[in-house]
């Protein structure tokens, strides 16, 4: 049913650390790998080795340049996937009931055998988290690796989303954001985790941790005194030229 269930006590989701992400796209690849080989329709590519490749991805990494009023610009890598919103607008617009939010853990899923591929859920999502697969004609989205996290056939350390498992810089964290004592909730509280587009009223479960403020080192150059430049008592043509140019109107002293 596309009616949203009452808010679940358990809210599984991701916490993504924008301070730590190095923009390697390993999460993109592991996500595509796991999700194309396992649950549901594969994530197809069109013209993958040709001039205009394009394909379905459940997780994409953007990179933004942020220019503060003063100081150097920062480059921030920004992985983006489904935020498993509490008020998921993608679920309620679905005409067939294919889209649903699980009452037990809050994961937003698509039942692909009910999906007519109308695309309205992707229109309703402000985050671009849903992509219509061009080959299968059904909507694909992040499942929070629901086929890993509860999978007792996997060793325990693998029972987390593929993107989290693979992240080499520890920028992705998985856990229960409905439990204030969980590691992820504490991380969010400690680091000031925030919602994307809070004004859209979707109440995302996934949180983002802001980049830590850059400290401003005073400029210390211990070699500088030993490298005092240029003889003051110049001679010859260069000295004459220096004097002559300096004495001209607007010349540097």
């Amino acid at each position, binding site marked *: 049913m596309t009616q949203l269930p009452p808010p679940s006590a358990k809210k599984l989701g991701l916490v993504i650390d924008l301070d730590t992400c190095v923009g390697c796209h390993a999460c993109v690849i592991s996500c595509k790998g796991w999700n194309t080989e396992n649950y549901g329709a594969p994530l197809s590519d069109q013209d993958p080795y040709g001039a205009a490749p394009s394909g379905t991805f459940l997780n994409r990494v953007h990179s933004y340049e942020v220019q503060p009023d003063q100081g150097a610009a920062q480059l921030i890598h920004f992985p983006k996937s489904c935020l498993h919103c509490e008020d998921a607008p993608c679920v309620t617009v679905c005409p067939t009931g294919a889209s649903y939010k699980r009452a037990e853990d809050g994961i937003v899923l698509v039942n692909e055998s009910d999906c007519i591929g109308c695309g309205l859920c992707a229109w309703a999502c402000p985050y671009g988290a849903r992509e*219509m697969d061009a080959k299968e004609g059904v909507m694909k989205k992040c499942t929070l690796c629901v086929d890993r996290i509860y999978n007792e056939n996997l060793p325990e350390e693998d029972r987390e989303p593929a993107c989290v498992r693979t992240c080499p810089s520890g920028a992705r964290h998985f856990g229960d954001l409905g439990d204030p004592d969980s590691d992820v909730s504490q991380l969010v509280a400690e680091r000031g985790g925030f919602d994307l587009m809070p004004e859209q009223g979707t109440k995302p479960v996934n949180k983002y941790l802001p980049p830590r403020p850059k400290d401003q080192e005073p400029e210390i150059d211990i070699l500088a005194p030993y490298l005092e430049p240029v003889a003051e008592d110049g001679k010859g043509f260069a000295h004459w030229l220096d004097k002559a140019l300096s004495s001209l109107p607007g010349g540097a002293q």
Partner: protein
Amino acid sequence: MHPAPSVIIFTTFSGLGFGLLFWLGVGALVPTGLSAFIWFAIAYIFAVGGLLASTFHLGHPERAVKAFSQWKTSWLSREGICAVATLIIMALYGAGLVFAGARIGIFGWLGAAGAIATVFTTSMIYAQLKTVPRWKHWTTPALFLVLSLGGGALLGGQVIEALILLLIASSLQFYAWVTGDTRLAQSGTDMASATGLGHIGKVRAFEPPHTGTNYLMREFIHVVGRKHAQQLRIIGLGLAFALPLLFLLLPFNHIFAALAVLSHVAGVLTLRWLFFAEAEHVVGLYYGKR
């Protein structure tokens, strides 16, 4: 938004068809026998043809029947139900006129209400979307309804009603453009809120996730077509309203009436194309576009 031909054709023609069904239903024109058959055939070709066109953009049209199930939350589902219910009721009403020469008033009024409900639910599919600030406004359902009823009146030869409704529609369209042009900026959603990085400084999209395009960019970012938006707005207003109004004011003549309808249809197709092409989806902000 990507202006998909199937959706433009669907909203334009089914709007006209249901508009005509409304005027037939309320009894503004009460044809009987063969003439009733022709009137209802025209209305059904437009309404059903439009609905069929809308299934062309589905990934799995064979499962379309499932779309009637989620009327509690989904405007798309409600639209499907309203459309089918209206078409069934109006078929009974039409059968009365064609075969018995009798107007079954209750079916007519129910069908007219259903036609309005169908157009309204169609418009709410767009007007409900917070992600497209230009659409999330009362002018969206108002315009869809007035255009449908005005076009239906024009098609059904209801000159006075058509004149009034087309005049209202043109001012509504103008108002929707003027207010819609700034609605994304006023929505409070921008690159700063999309990335949550605005507190550090000015955010600029540095590198997209992939060198190529993707579904999101094809579906939601349609910058190219906006280049000629101003000219197309004038052409749309001229074809949809000015020319048909002129033809209506001239002494009645079947050729003028046909030209008025043709011009109006071409104009509404232009306006619908703009409705999609000009609409900015907030997901474009993640790509530094709108």
